[in-house]
């Protein structure tokens, strides 16, 4: 696969790889994709009481563009408000990484991961 330099950079030097405590009420965890489909992303967002994303971490099983999409997403949402982070779309991710058409689904998955992490955070808030 002929990838853009940006994909290669994120793949070779992925940003914010890691995990946070799932039980932390300030941490929202999104786990999207499926092993059978060849990609799974776990995105975790640490959100403070002002609704600002203080930290983001990811782990991804998937191809180079899936890893790059998740790495990019962590850098995009860090420091943003939850409302702004929700506005990040797969088109933004695909454009930024110049993803080839067959890899657009990776950016869709990355957008889903943000939404899933925020949903998890909100659920924790309402449950507690």
């Amino acid at each position: 696969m002929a990838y853009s330099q940006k994909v290669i950079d994120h793949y070779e030097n992925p940003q914010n790889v890691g995990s946070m405590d799932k039980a932390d009420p300030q941490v929202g965890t999104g786990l999207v994709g499926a092993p059978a489909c060849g990609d799974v992303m776990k995105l975790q967002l640490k959100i403070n009481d002002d609704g600002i994303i203080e930290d983001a971490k990811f782990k991804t099983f998937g191809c180079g563009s899936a890893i790059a999409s998740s790495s990019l997403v962590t850098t995009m949402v860090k420091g943003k408000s939850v409302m702004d982070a929700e506005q990040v779309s797969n088109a933004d991710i695909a454009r930024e990484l110049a993803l080839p058409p067959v890899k657009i689904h990776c950016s869709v998955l990355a957008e889903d991961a943000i939404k899933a992490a925020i949903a998890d955070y909100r659920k924790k808030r309402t449950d507690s």
Partner: protein
Amino acid sequence: MSTELKLPLYFDNNATTPCDPRVVEAMVPYLFQHFGNPASRAHAYGWAAREAVEVAREQVASLIGASPKEIVFTSGATESDNLAIKGAARYSARKGKHLITVATEHKAILDSCHALEREGFEITYLEVDAEGLISLDALRKAIRDDTTLVSVMYANNEIGVLQPVAEIGAICREKGVLFHCDAVQALAYLPIDVKAMNIDLLSISAHKMYGPKGVGALFVRRGRPRVRVQPIIDGGGHERGMRSGTLATHQIVGLGKAAELAQKAIQEGEIERVRALRDRLWHGLRANLDELYLNGSWEHRLPNNLNVSFAYVEGEAMMMGIKQIACSSGSACTSASLEPSYVLRAMGVDVELAHTSIRFGLGRFNTEAEVDYAIDLITDKVRFLREMSPLYEMVKEGIDLKSIQWTAH
């Protein structure tokens, strides 16, 4: 790590092999100096070309224990497979319209069979077990009164698994049906004797045995039984009417030389050297990494092939990480179809593991130093990517991945 290695390392010898310099040397004079058309019977240019083609025919025949008159030159194994399957099936259509093949065959076989299905033929696709092997009992049971041809490859191109061709040949002979064998992957590494193995049609490719691309051959038995195939390319009636088209002298010379060298290599034990490299790679990786899964039988396997699933590391990401090694993946992400390997699926390999498979094909020009470099690099990258894999993390936390409600997409 040695700094003298030529990178990227070529570990994809099941896809194609470099042309041996001795093959190149043999071919060159037939491009300009002896450029004649082997079919030109009236002048010296034609005679020189014809002589070279006949020498090559003998070299190819010798490799498989055939007679030169049983060798038909083609453009490659895809054409040979097409000619064997369609040619034999159509010629015998009045006798019967049933063929038997295997789910893990090369696409050249499977797609030829699909084409015949559209013409009204019926095909039985034998299943394979978890090791990638067919059951001889199932083959026996599948043969019917209207079966005319059985096609089973010697060595699988993805997993290197060897089918019991001699036993298959014996069954086909006993039942009176033709046996076609795609032997492309095995030719450079295993002795083949079409008589002893009762093979009636056998596909050959040059570029899988250190010869040039664009040329191959089909062995068509002449003795008992005499095998007839209907041509799929019509024209000047070359190759005893089975394959029209001006013979590509230089290519055929290359195929012949490659066959001669392959035969010599097998006799001189060169194969054991390749097997030792492959074994060194596998044992080295296993010593360093957990959760590696060998795809296909270890016992019944080409000496140069290693197909491994590196669990929790997606194949394409893996190949990006080890870009200093040229290899292949069964992952969907490396294919145009976005479907993981049908060969692995046919063996019942979990689709999750199919996505993580990598094929290494060692060959004549690989060295121990290259293998050691590869072991170190692969070990590093697998550790790096597993560190990044949520699946590996979950498994280490004791979570059963099958218990998770995944969202397919």
